[in-house]
């Protein structure tokens, strides 16, 4: 057993999915222990793969293993795994967060209907997600990509009795599916140019210049559309906040830590192609910047804790794309990792709050919960500061890296935009924390019945809080070395042909980064301290137009709704009308009516009178005889 058998990582949870889906209903406790067992086995397998990978004498070269899948003449498909440092890191993130979320769910989902189904789909999700990051070819990536999408659909719509949950699930699936149209087109375009789906071979072909410039740019942009859809980048971001209709552990696992980063992962995986394609990196950067900025604004006016976190997730995904836009996959993956930990922590923390307050997630009804829920409060505090970017917590190091790289690549203008987004991040995070955990409770009744959650839920919180605090330190050479890696994360992940670079603190940027976080935190603290809304209300009233725009999230949803209702559905009605009245009633039934009408007219020749028929025969005979004589001449 070694890195070649990494496919087992996906196979094990998939097997547990089958068991849970088929027999879960009959098992005691809905088989939740099988779910935990499944994920823990995946985690153990990950450790085995990791150790084997680090021991490989080939100096961390990728481990490849593939088999023939099907042949149609010259069209040969191979399926296989490709294990390199990026995959290993993703394995770690996925398995660790999954273990925590599974354990947390045992407490959080207790007593829910379809309990077993929740765990079953969770296993399927983990299996698909692991498959996604280990796939060696784009076809397999696409397969896993759709599978995680369908798991997301099932889990967002878990409370299907609620119309809003069903709508949200539908919206998520269809929006990402629109991006996937681009992804599939891109994949097939690459196949058309290179004759293969294998990622490494495509990268090689692109680097060798075997693909025309425009063709390459168009293809990679199609692929990037898929990444934007999955990672909820503007203008595809609308589905993610709605996806918060799903159970909170799902939001933590799928819509914060793992599935939504699939786009980041795939872009990182294909980054050499983005570098070759002229202008592609700029597009990636601009998309990331736009998203980070816009969603920062949108998060400011939200009052639902999960929605704030959702917009924050979209924004942080924007940060990751900005990191990718600098051409450094390591930084994006680094931010992905730290973000996964602290955002999963924040979501699970909000889940703990929601659970404790009996499904209350409106800030307008919360406040002052720290005393009631000390563990949740403290861990949430750590997570918030990590998100805001205070040293030495995880978020600081990865954001700092992004700023440095961004400055090198695109210059100060980009840093300014992203810096503003970072200030807003710190601001809304602090606002979220103060309004939920500090000051006076907004609703005494809710406050009264609140109590700290059990250990099965606080345990994962504490563990994730630990990771949120220290995981950023893996950027340092010594820390990485100590863990058995060749060095810090930037020395572990780097593009082939590039040199690993060792991390050194850039004091100027560190100070600037710290200043941004502080400004944001101070601003929010000044405005909301003691959970008082006096100052913020005054601000909102000072310029109601801006406030309304923020509150309605720049009218994206309204715009899309109008396009769908007026455009798409209207067109569909038009086509249906055309089909019914033009093609069917005019074309098909029309020809039937013409036949019927002709028959109706001609039937009067049938008089029923024998003499008429006899006369017709006689005249016919005479006519034929005359005609015969004439023809014969």
């Amino acid at each position, binding site marked *: 057993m070694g890195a070649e058998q990494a496919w087992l990582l996906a196979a094990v949870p998939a097997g547990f999915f089958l068991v849970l889906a088929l027999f879960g209903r009959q098992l005691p406790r809905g088989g939740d222990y099988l779910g935990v067992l499944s994920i823990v086995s995946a985690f153990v397998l990950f450790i085995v793969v990791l150790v084997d990978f680090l021991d490989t004498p080939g100096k961390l070269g990728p481990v490849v293993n593939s088999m023939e899948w099907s042949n149609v003449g010259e069209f040969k498909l191979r399926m296989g795994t490709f294990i390199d440092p990026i995959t290993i890191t993703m394995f770690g993130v996925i398995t660790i967060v999954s273990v925590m979320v599974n354990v947390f769910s045992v407490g959080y989902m207790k007593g829910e209907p379809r309990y077993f189904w929740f765990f079953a789909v969770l296993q399927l999700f983990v299996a698909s997600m692991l498959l996604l990051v280990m796939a060696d070819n784009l076809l397999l990536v696409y397969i896993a990509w759709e599978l995680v999408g369908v798991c997301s659909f099932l889990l967002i719509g878990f409370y299907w009795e609620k119309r809003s949950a069903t709508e949200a699930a539908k919206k998520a699936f269809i929006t990402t599916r629109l991006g996937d149209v681009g992804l599939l087109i891109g994949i097939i375009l690459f196949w058309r140019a290179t004759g293969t789906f294998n990622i490494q071979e495509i990268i090689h072909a692109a680097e060798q210049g075997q693909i025309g410039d425009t063709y390459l740019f168009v293809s990679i942009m199609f692929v990037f559309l898929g990444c934007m859809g999955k990672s909820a980048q503007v203008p595809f971001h609308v589905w993610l906040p709605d996806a918060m209709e799903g159970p909170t552990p799902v939001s933590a696992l799928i819509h914060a830590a793992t599935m939504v980063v699939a786009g980041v992962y795939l872009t990182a995986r294909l980054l050499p192609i983005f570098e070759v394609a002229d202008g592609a990196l700029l597009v990636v950067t601009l998309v990331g910047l736009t998203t980070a900025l816009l969603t920062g604004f949108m998060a400011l006016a939200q009052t639902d804790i999960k929605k704030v976190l959702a917009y924050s997730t979209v924004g942080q995904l924007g940060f990751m794309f900005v990191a990718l836009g600098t051409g450094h996959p390591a930084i994006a993956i680094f931010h992905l990792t730290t973000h996964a930990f602290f955002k999963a922590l924040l979501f699970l923390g909000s889940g703990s709050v929601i659970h404790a307050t009996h499904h209350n997630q409106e800030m307008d009804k919360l406040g002052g919960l720290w005393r009631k829920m000390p563990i949740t409060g403290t861990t949430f505090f750590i997570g918030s500061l990590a998100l805001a970017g205070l040293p030495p917590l995880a978020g600081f190091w990865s954001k700092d890296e992004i700023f440095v790289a961004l400055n090198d690549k695109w210059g100060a203008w980009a840093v300014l935009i992203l810096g503003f987004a970072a200030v807003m991040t710190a601001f809304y995070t602090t606002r979220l924390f103060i309004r939920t955990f500090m000051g006076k409770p907004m609703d005494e009744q809710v406050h009264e019945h609140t109590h700290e959650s059990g250990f099965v839920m606080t345990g994962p919180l504490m563990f994730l809080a630990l990771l949120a605090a220290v995981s950023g330190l893996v950027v340092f050479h010594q820390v990485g070395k100590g863990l058995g890696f060749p060095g810090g994360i930037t020395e572990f992940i780097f593009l082939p042909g590039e040199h690993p670079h060792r991390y050194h603190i850039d004091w100027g940027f560190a100070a600037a980064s710290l200043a941004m976080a502080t400004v944001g935190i101070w601003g929010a603290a000044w405005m909301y301290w003691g959970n008082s809304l006096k100052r913020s209300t005054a601000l909102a009233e000072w310029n109601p137009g801006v406030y309304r725009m923020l509150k309605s999230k720049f009218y994206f949803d309204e715009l899309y709704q109008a396009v769908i209702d007026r455009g798409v559905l209207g067109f569909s009605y038009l086509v249906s009308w055309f089909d019914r009245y033009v093609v069917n009633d005019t074309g098909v039934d029309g020809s039937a009516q013409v036949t019927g009408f002709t028959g109706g007219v001609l039937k009067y020749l*049938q008089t*029923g*009178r024998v*003499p008429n028929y*006899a006369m017709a025969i*006689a005249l016919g005979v005479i006519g034929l005889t005359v005609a015969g004589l004439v023809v014969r001449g």
Partner: protein
Amino acid sequence: MVPLENYLVLSAIIFSLGVYGVLARRNAVLILMSVELMLNAVSLNFIAFAAYLDPDKITGAIFAVFVITVAAAEVGLALAIVIRLFRNRATSNVDEAAIMKW
């Protein structure tokens, strides 16, 4: 020997009488009789031609016998229909039996 033309003229006269009867008469029985006249005219032609063209063979006579057979069968059928018609409608006028239309 009587020339062939005489037979043919006779045959043509009988045939024309038959045609006139079929076209002009309204009584079903009379129409049937007219049809018989036409058939007999044809038989006469067959026999006359056979006798003149190839006296050794009796091909024409055979055909005449066929025609008689068919005519008999036809009259049997037709009279049955006429009787049914008369039973149902109390008439043998074919103009009044014009229900088999449209």
